[in-house]
């Protein structure tokens, strides 16, 4: 049909009752956009390059022949393509993004500006050290902030995200066990049921086996059950604190002592560090290793899925096994220790477990995170954590009028609800969440943690104003009342109706995966 000649997506087949249609499929400012493969072609380009001389090539006879299949767009077409796509996204700059455990906070543009200074963005990781002293000093300074904020003696800067930081910590634990000659005997890692999926996945990726720890009625590690599982085959424990129920593990000290007594190590998942920065230091709580998501706690943008950065702080016991490279300050200024051999020369007793990534970590994120930290200062960071926790408790309290908190009492930086307030309404957690989209909000984290039925985990962060939170709560309360009042099952099931797309068929997507563009068969193309 007409649309396809324009390379536009196929039109609705079963338009909803009172859907208005337009010829273009656009709705004023909501503009449909086809794939670059449908708009562009191999001959077009949005880049002007000098003409090659045509000198004979020296590619050893391995020249590429034939088409690659990459469409090109003139710059104006490309600009429009991506601007139109962007307008189909929700973002923290548009409104609350209350994803529990994700810490979607404001991303200051000052940080973006700093990260783009040529002195940081336009330097190569393998330039002579004397030409990057400012960069090394910055990494060293950030490391100092991280160590001070966590009260830990060492930090590994290589990890590229939280999960990578988990890998770093667990690798250090494994290396320590090797050093102790217990690597063959200690293979079991204890992980609470409420843990994020990356925890068990990481443990297995390090060659450990995972053993679940049950949660108590009040959403915390069951200390007795945990102790019962301890033994000479335990390598360590991975506990998130504050945990994924938004609660602080009251007995964290006991947990740490117990695992240490049992000869294991304490890995703390620091994804929720935002709740306690300058309020409590993991180093004072017996932690052996903890990753810090700079893209959560320290405001580097999530960027639609990444990049992130997961520096991992280490205790005295694990510090010697930190991976290469790391920055040391010496007579000739700042220096990078890049090999095991060199590491043990420059740092007494160092025996790095190896290397986690090429080069030196996420410099671009380091700049942003340090800019965030210096802007806040220790006073601002403490205030931020307090506001994050206050905002969460305010939301928990206000929503409790209609919704059901999963656990009693105050929460930390995020408020967890179960779906019992929806019992018998015919409205499920997912429907409730999708209805939020029509109201102008991104849904909260759903069905996680697994220990709570139909979980709804709301993390407002400190960068939401009381006004935003009040409107957000009013909207959710009205949805809850609407659900309970009954008769709105269809509305909830149909939501969202105002978004660029209605609910998508994920089952079909997984059954016959279409993971890349393929030229439509001539027949269709001609349609």
């Amino acid at each position, binding site marked *: 049909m007409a649309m396809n000649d324009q390379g536009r997506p*196929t039109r609705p087949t079963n338009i909803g009752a009172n859907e208005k249609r337009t010829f273009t499929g656009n709705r004023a400012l909501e503009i449909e956009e086809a794939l670059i*493969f449908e708009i562009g072609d191999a001959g077009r380009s949005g880049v002007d390059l000098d003409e090659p001389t045509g000198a004979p090539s020296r590619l050893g006879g391995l020249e590429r022949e034939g088409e690659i299949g990459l469409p090109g767009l003139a710059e104006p077409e490309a600009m429009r393509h991506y601007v139109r796509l962007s307008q189909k996204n929700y973002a923290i700059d548009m409104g609350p993004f209350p994803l529990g455990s994700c810490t979607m906070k404001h991303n200051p543009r000052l940080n973006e500006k700093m990260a783009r200074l040529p002195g940081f963005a*336009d330097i190569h*990781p393998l330039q002579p050290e004397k030409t990057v002293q400012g960069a090394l000093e910055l990494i060293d300074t950030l490391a100092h902030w991280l160590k001070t904020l966590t009260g830990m003696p060492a930090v590994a800067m290589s990890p590229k995200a939280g999960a990578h930081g988990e890998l770093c910590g667990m690798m250090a634990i494994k290396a320590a066990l090797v050093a102790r000659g217990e690597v063959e005997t200690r293979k079991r890692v204890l992980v609470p049921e409420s843990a994020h999926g990356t925890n068990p996945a990481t443990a297995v990726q390090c060659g450990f086996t995972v053993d679940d720890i049950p949660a108590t009625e009040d959403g915390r590690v069951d200390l007795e059950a945990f102790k019962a599982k301890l033994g000479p085959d335990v390598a360590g424990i991975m506990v998130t604190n504050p945990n994924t129920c938004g609660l602080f593990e009251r007995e964290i000290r006991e947990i740490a002592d117990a695992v240490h007594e049992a000869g294991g190590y304490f890995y703390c998942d620091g994804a929720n560090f935002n709740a306690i920065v300058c309020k409590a230091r993991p180093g004072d709580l017996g932690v052996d290793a903890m990753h810090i998501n700079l893209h959560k706690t320290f405001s580097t943008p*999530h960027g639609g899925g990444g990049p992130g950065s997961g520096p991992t702080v280490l205790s005295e016991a694990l510090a010697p096994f930190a991976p290469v490279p790391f920055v040391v300050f010496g007579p000739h200024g700042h220096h990078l220790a890049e090999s095991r051999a060199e590491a043990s020369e420059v740092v007494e007793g160092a025996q790095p477990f190896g290397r986690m990534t090429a080069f030196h970590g996420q410099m671009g994120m380091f*700049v942003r995170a340090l800019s965030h930290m210096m802007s806040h200062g220790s006073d601002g960071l403490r205030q931020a954590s307090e506001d994050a926790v206050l905002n969460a408790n305010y939301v928990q309290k206000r929503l409790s009028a209609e919704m059901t908190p999963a656990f009693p009492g105050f929460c930390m930086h995020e408020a967890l609800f179960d779906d019992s307030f929806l019992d018998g309404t015919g409205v499920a957690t997912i429907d409730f969440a999708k209805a939020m989209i029509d109201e102008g909000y991104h849904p909260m984290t759903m069905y996680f943690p697994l220990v709570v039925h139909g979980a709804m985990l709301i993390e407002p962060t400190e960068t939401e104003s*009381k006004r935003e939170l009040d409107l957000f709560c009013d909207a959710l309360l009205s949805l809850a009342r609407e659900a309970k009042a009954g008769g709105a099952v269809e509305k909830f099931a149909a939501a969202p109706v105002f978004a660029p797309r209605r609910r998508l068929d994920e089952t079909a997507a997984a059954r016959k995966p279409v993971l890349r563009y393929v030229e439509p068969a001539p027949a269709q193309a001609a349609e």
Partner: protein
Amino acid sequence: MRYLPLNDADRREMLAVVGASAIDDLFEDVPNEALNPEIDLPRRQGELQVERAFAGLASKNVPASSVPFFVGAGAYKHHVPATVDHIIQRSEFLTSYTPYQPEVAQGTLQYLFEFQSQVAALTGMDVANASMYDGSTATAEAALMARRVTKKSKVVLSGGLHPHYAAVTRTNSELVGDTVLRLGPDADGTQDLIGLIDDDTSCVVVQTPDIFGRVRDLAPIAEAAHAKGALLVAVVTEIVSLGALKSPGEMGADIVVGEGQSIGNALNFGGPYVGLFATRQKYVRQAPGRLCGETTDAEGQRGFVLTLSTREQHIRRDKATSNICTNSGLCCLAFTIHMSLLGEAGLKKLARLNHEAACRTYDAVAAVPGVEMLTDRFFNEFAVRLPKNAEGVVDALADRGVLAGVPGGRLWPDNPEMENVLLVAATETTTDDHIAALASALKEVL
């Protein structure tokens, strides 16, 4: 504090609502002796002060654009159109989360679908994922995937593989008990990989162009690997090369991993970069990382979603193919924007310009007395052997305002044989003046 919307009045009011008398009531679960530690760090600062501090640090570094620049070895200085950096800073892209709610994330999902399609086409594979952290971790993941696919446990790493990539792969594979056979640096391109592939081999990992800039024909290696039931993992650290060279897919690779930094992304002192991961359709369910797929919505309109997530940690936990969660989202966007601006014609031309700049540089360096060229089949980088320690030479040239390349000692610190080796890279940003400056400075120093 400028980023905190609550003022004291708000705080008092809200504390009252939640029924707390003071903020620390909310922290009651924190062991008392651990609460509110003294933190010895500076206090808040305004934008102006922070900007001045960072400008000070930045001024102690030498930007690549400010000097004749020949540093490569896995990260390359290319020109990125202004449009790219403008678009990736749009709030809707920069400040959005992983597209788990597809109804309000079609922007991210569609570009991921386009990104996957471009990477698959470039590498000559069936499918590509939505990115890994970088080329090195993508390589490590490839070896782990080969293990899952072949149920074998011996990894063979070519001596032409970037030493950092080799180290990362070894660190990860040994954790799960694999034996990793890592060959020494193949400076002269004489290594026999094929002889090392046996029945226990899960994969052989080969880089092309290799760390010495040498262009490698993967076909024979692929054949040998397949004969033994092993997979060929091809590594590409300079993705622009695929605008000029046969794709690894054409040469029989089963998994192609690479570093995408060259397209759309700045040098950033090593990160963030974007790891490319592509493979054959038949292996897709063993692939790590996110995958975006096409589907339709309740009205029958085309839309996109994250799919096959039963491979991933948030669903499969300890059974996941990888623990990766956050990946390189925004760097994929930069990559896909730059690539769609280039288009096929542009990419081929760009590759050609890179090769020609490298050829001119090669000839100029070859003409410097005492320099031994180590290869004559390269793309935009080549290795030479100098009559003296390359690290010292590079330092001396830096003092003369030329960043000449990567000395062997930097990549193989524990290998004296590599001390005199220098890796020299050129790109479309390299001018004849740059080349002349390099050659004359080199003459002076040697």
